[in-house]
């Protein structure tokens, strides 16, 4: 996970200038989010279990990773990022676009981490590419998600020699993050039925797929709005020598 964070932050800093975002700001944003996330995760764990920490206050500053609350940490990390971004007046959509490589790297790293510890595994299968885990041959859903994220990143950042052929050159703010989220949501719709932990509602619907459909719909709506806004010709008023205004 740390390697993924480092790789993602390097990639995000490298490309941020193309989105009009200062690489230093992106680096600060990512590291602030990480530190705030870790501190927030520990504080949340302490608050939830405060009575036991009263007997051993030094336990609050332990380096043990087991005493971390993931949800609390995620909220604190995101909030810290938003506050920092607002304070230095970062442009929201270009910043999200600049962070897209970091999100892709983190998602890929998460897939490898799950594979390493045997988490996020798939349902049993007889396919030759199944991996032996917990006593059965299973779909390598961790690998499927890694490959899907790499493919999504490829759509955005593909290069052919020195030429950029991916969506990289799209100059509408917000396109990169929205396309990336759309593609990742598509991957989850396809892969979720193969996950062992996938749940069903009323034997028909999978909540993860429903959520992914919603994400896709929102992304498409926003993409449509952004591209439509970008294609509306601008009206400029020019003063003619006679003092009357003309419209283009």
């Amino acid at each position, binding site marked *: 996970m740390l390697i993924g964070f480092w790789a993602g932050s390097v990639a995000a800093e490298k490309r941020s200038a193309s989105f009009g975002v200062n690489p230093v700001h992106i680096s600060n944003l990512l590291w602030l989010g990480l530190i705030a996330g870790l501190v927030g995760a520990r504080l949340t*764990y302490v608050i*939830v*279990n405060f009575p*036991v*920490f009263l*007997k*051993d206050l030094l*336990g*609050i500053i*332990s380096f*043990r990773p*087991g*005493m971390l609350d993931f949800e609390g940490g995620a909220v604190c990390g995101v909030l810290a990022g938003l506050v920092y971004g607002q304070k230095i007046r970062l442009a929201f959509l270009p910043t999200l676009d600049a962070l897209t490589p970091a999100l892709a790297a983190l998602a890929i790293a998460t897939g490898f981490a799950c594979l390493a510890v*045997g*988490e996020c595994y798939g349902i049993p299968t007889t396919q030759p590419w199944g991996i032996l885990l*917990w*006593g059965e041959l299973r779909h390598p859903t961790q690998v499927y998600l890694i490959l899907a994220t790499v493919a999504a990143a490829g759509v955005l950042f593909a290069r052919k020699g020195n030429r950029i052929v991916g969506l990289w050159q799209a100059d509408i703010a917000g396109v990169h993050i929205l396309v990336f989220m759309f593609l990742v949501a598509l991957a989850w719709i396809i892969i979720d039925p193969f996950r062992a*932990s996938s749940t069903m509602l009323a034997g028909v619907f999978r909540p993860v797929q429903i959520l992914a459909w919603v994400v896709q719909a929102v992304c498409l709506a926003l993409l449509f709005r952004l591209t439509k806004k970008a294609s509306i010709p601008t009206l400029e008023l020019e003063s003619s020598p006679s003092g009357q205004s003309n419209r283009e």
Partner: protein
Amino acid sequence: MEAPRQGSMAPGFSLKTLDGEVIQLEDFRGKPVILNFWASWCPPCRVEMPALQAVSDTYIDQGLVVLGVNVTNLDNPAEASRFLDEAGVTFANVLDPDGSVSRLYQARALPTTFFIGPDGVIKKVVIGGPLERPLLEAEALNLIDGGN
């Protein structure tokens, strides 16, 4: 599915204590269990043993079971017994003479601790140590409250 991972049923086993008494994990179904794999030569195992004893003493009346598994194929029963006496440990400890249970639980690093709910499902796995008392108490309370 039985597997030594969070969310799965804890694999069953049957081992003997230093006194020769047979203990099976299934004996404790319906009670929260903290299962700790250790060896007498393992420094963090030795450091965390008093905390495990303290948690056992504090929550035994609420049904908590603390069960130690000495990885005897990598240790010495005499050394293990001496360490338990010196540390004043009174909760049950069993010997794993051929390492089969530690392999079953994939306890490749010592200590490794499993927090098992009254339903027999592993709620949390902590690899390494020493475990601090706040963590042990917090997770013990989660196990106890989860069963109520």
